[in-house]
């Protein structure tokens, strides 16, 4: 549900950037976030479709780079890909692990503008 707030913040950010960098409209917004960050791409797209009309980002395409969840397992002595939120090694089920990726917050990485 918080995707609506994320989109509102994103549109405000685009507005500020348009003044800073002098562009009129946005054609592509490239966004990135971690797989475990509780951001849903479909909800994000939906919120964008509702909120963007009348702004500089109206009609812009959203491109998502979704970063994989990863942890380092001290038993396996290696990095493993995560498939859930569990802090447990998917290979050996060990719990001596640290999270190394996947919780990255939503970021605006790049835009294509006119």
């Amino acid at each position, binding site marked *: 549900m918080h995707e609506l707030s994320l989109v509102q913040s994103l549109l405000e950010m685009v507005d500020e950037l348009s003044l800073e960098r002098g562009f009129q409209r946005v054609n592509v917004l490239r966004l990135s976030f971690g797989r475990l960050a509780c951001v849903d791409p479909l909800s994000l797209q939906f919120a964008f479709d509702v909120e963007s009309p009348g702004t500089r980002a109206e009609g812009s395409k959203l491109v998502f780079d979704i970063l994989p969840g990863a942890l380092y397992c001290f038993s396996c002595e290696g990095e493993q890909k995560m498939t859930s939120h569990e802090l447990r090694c998917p290979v050996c089920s060990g719990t001596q692990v640290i999270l190394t990726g996947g919780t990255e917050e939503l970021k605006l*990485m790049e835009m294509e503008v006119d």
Partner: protein
Amino acid sequence: MSTKVTVVKNVLDANDRLAADNRKLFAEKKIFVVNLMSSPGAGKTTLLERTIQELRGTWKIGVIEGDIQDTYDADRIAALDIPVVQINTGGACHIDSNMVREALPGLNIDNMDLLFVENVGNLVCPAEFDIGEQMKIMILSTPEGADKPAKYPLMFQSSTALIINKTDLLPYVNFDLEKAKRDALILNPKLLIFEVSCKTGAGLEVWTRWLNEQIRVFSGR
């Protein structure tokens, strides 16, 4: 002809900046801020009422209540003669740092040691928004089921302590206490867990003693 512009900026940058301002202000005023989160009906307001009764002799307390609409919760706190401000989020599923900022003029923060922010009842979104709090505390009540940590991981990961409430209902509800605790600790090995019943008062003393100690260390008093 379209031009590429590199940005690399957190979308919640504005919220995070405001949260940092809030945190700085709370540090200057020595106000310990607790962001209290749970599902609707888990017992946030009742826990607040009980906790306030225990700690009001030691600390000056204020409360910010967040709800989509109405003032039921704020009325309950005001009945205890505790300063309270109600935020109506008007549909938003969480409290953000700007809402907290705007609520502060309604409280006398020059004369306050402890501020509770009761977030909107929701196990998902509030965990995403930093409001400048000292710590996030969450409540899980036994009728909700022991599968909640596994289903709503972020909130368990971002909380300092988990309060399992309504333990008086354990004989009547199908709640696997050990499973809930085990799953929560897999998500967050540092999570502190308190088992309480706000109805009977069981376990409340352990919780309030711990919270009191956290505030004492923070305020240096």
